């Protein structure tokens, strides 16, 4: 700020003492402005210089982008500083860095989505979708690589396991989560117990997923013996992760139900529980449904808790109360880390990417579905 003031002062005083002819005068406030074409101009120059610099040491799109960005940020900062002053130079630098950070954050997202699509598409076919890994050994994979035959074995068992375990954890978490939220909003009234629950729900949000898995294992080990690994243990582990999400979203939704609706119901002599069941929840149901959907989307991709609770199976198992179960995330993990055929890893990698594509599609559909539900069935606002 001080720099500008000192720069302008001589101008101003001269203007006051000896005003120049109006036609020749440049507005002192408009002085030192870069023309509008400056930014695209500097960008074009940076692109040319960047292209030149990147060809020096082996051309690639990545080095071109990096050199261009660096040259652009430095050049525009320096030029702005020279023309408009150091304050504006700093502003330009900050603006450029903020834009660069956003583009930087998009790179992994774009790269992940592109990789999954590119590598997952070849593996998606009806055989993959409707067959398990039962009987698929290293020898089978070796044979299909040698003969150039299509990759055998699929993720059917993992899809079934994912759906069943997620279903069971939803069945456990939704009633518990919703009732807790109802207690917090309708009954607790910010008492000591309600405050304790709110606090510990926040704490639960931060439990690492693998610790939730260990908890479920430890719980069932005490109840059923140390080797109890089955679907329901995984469902309990996922519920520990899911309940806080359900509580938070339901609580938010119940809080925005207008009190007038409750009071109107009470005035008609309706019991409190019927008011909640027939008036409050139906009003908030769209938000609750979208919150639950987002919670499902969060746990459906969890790997670590499944790893330590449901183990890994190669065959189809529809019984969550017995035997090991596979899910899509653990299927991906094991296909990458311990390929079916250690000498020919390609079939396993292909199955892993195909399963990743399947999983990402499930998560995205759930996410978009949640937004759609929230948008379509949003409670009518007072008019």
């Amino acid at each position, binding site marked *: 700020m001080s720099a500008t003031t000192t720069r302008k002062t001589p101008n101003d005083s001269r203007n006051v003492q000896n005003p120049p002819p109006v036609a020749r005068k440049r507005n002192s406030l408009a002085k030192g402005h870069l023309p509008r074409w400056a930014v695209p101009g500097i960008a074009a120059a940076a692109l040319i210089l960047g292209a030149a610099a990147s060809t020096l040491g082996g051309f690639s799109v990545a080095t071109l982008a990096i050199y261009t960005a660096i040259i652009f940020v430095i050049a525009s900062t320096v030029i702005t500083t020279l023309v408009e002053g150091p*304050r504006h130079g*700093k*502003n330009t630098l*900050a*603006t450029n*860095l*903020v*834009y660069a*950070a*956003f583009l930087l*954050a*998009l790179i*992994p*997202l774009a*790269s*992940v989505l592109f*990789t999954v699509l590119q590598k997952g598409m070849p593996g998606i076919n009806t055989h993959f979708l409707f067959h398990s890994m039962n009987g698929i050994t290293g020898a089978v994979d070796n044979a299909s690589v040698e003969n150039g035959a299509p990759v055998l074995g699929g993720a059917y068992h993992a899809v079934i396991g994912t759906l069943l375990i997620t279903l069971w954890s939803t069945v456990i978490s939704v*009633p*518990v989560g919703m009732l*807790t939220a109802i*207690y917090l909003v309708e009954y607790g009234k910010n008492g000591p*117990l309600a405050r*304790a*629950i709110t606090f*510990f729900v926040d*704490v*639960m949000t*931060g439990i*690492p*997923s*693998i610790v*939730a898995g*260990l*908890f479920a*294992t*430890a*719980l069932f*080990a*005490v109840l059923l013996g140390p080797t109890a690994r089955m679907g329901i243990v995984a469902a309990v582990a996922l519920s520990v992760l899911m*309940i806080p999400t359900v509580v938070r979203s339901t609580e938010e939704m119940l809080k925005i139900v207008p009190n007038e609706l409750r009071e109107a119901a009470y005035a008609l002599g309706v*019991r*409190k*529980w*019927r008011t*909640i*069941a027939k008036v409050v929840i139906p009003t908030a149901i769209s938000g609750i449904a979208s919150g639950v959907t987002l919670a499902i*989307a969060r746990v459906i*991709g*969890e*790997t*670590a808790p499944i790893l*330590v609770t449901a183990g890994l199976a190669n065959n189809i198992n529809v019984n969550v109360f017995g035997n090991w179960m596979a899910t899509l995330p653990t299927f*991906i*993990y094991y296909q*990458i*880390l311990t390929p079916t055929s250690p000498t020919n890893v390609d079939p396993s*990698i292909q199955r892993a990417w195909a399963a990743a594509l399947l999983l990402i599609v499930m*998560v*995205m559909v759930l*996410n978009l579905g949640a937004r759609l539900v929230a948008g379509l069935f949003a409670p009518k606002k007072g008019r």
Partner: protein
Amino acid sequence: MTTNALRRNGSKGQAGDKVFSGAALGAGILILATLLAVAIFLFIQALPTFTADPTLITGGEGFASYIFPIVIGTVIAAAIALLIATPVGIAVALFISHYAPRRLAAGLGYVIDLLAAIPSVIYGAWGYLVLAPALVPTFQWLAANLGFIPIFAGPASQTGKTILTAGIVLAVMVLPIITSLSREIFLQTPKLHEEAALALGATRWEMITMSVLPFARPGIVSAVMLGLGRALGETMAVALVLSTGGLIPSLIKSGNQTIAAEIALNFPEAFGLRLAELIAAGLVLFVITLVVNLIARAIIARHKEFSGAN
């Protein structure tokens, strides 16, 4: 004797009320009990580790010297993640709240939220098969030119599966947490403060440093702490990306290990004392993340009336 009609009706449905409020209360208490049970059951199952002969523990020198290197490894990975994710995350939040065109802002926020929606195992697969090979030349350059600094001591890993790669993958996973919490707080800066700064002739960056950032500081700190909690507990990214080993200072050689990955990698084959050891490691992780999260929540609670991150 006739009873009052209103009164007789009044008792109807009382049972329903009691059942319903009882169920709601029970669900709330169940949550408290669950959290308590997490601590108790982990402790029961981990107990053999603390009572066993120290020579039987992995490494042969007792639990403390077994857990110490992997706690440090966990902290290193989380620190790398935060060093990258904090400035980028805050800048992205600023971009969405103060730089992007108003119409695009909501959509861009959703794009960043998509980063959080991608399952961690897919990040792990991406880090293992795409990012790690792509980083090998960078690591070799670091080893050749900055090798005199201990953290870049060569020879660089040939596969790129190092703690630095794991830290970068963790940074991508932590970024959306920091961004979405900071963005919410940036948007709550009083409009009058911003307009006053602009009216006094401040540039946009001066307006942000003078009005937005001071207002949002506690929120940013708690957002970073919550991100730290996530980075400490994240399993799959590290389990898949890191080629594990003993504790070493170099970030570009294979080596180091984190608690969560140690559990995930060894649990399926573990039994007996080894199982107890891993559960004890989980207990340590639980306590560390609990402390980090409690600090974050305490900061949020102290500034509750100002912040939106609660």
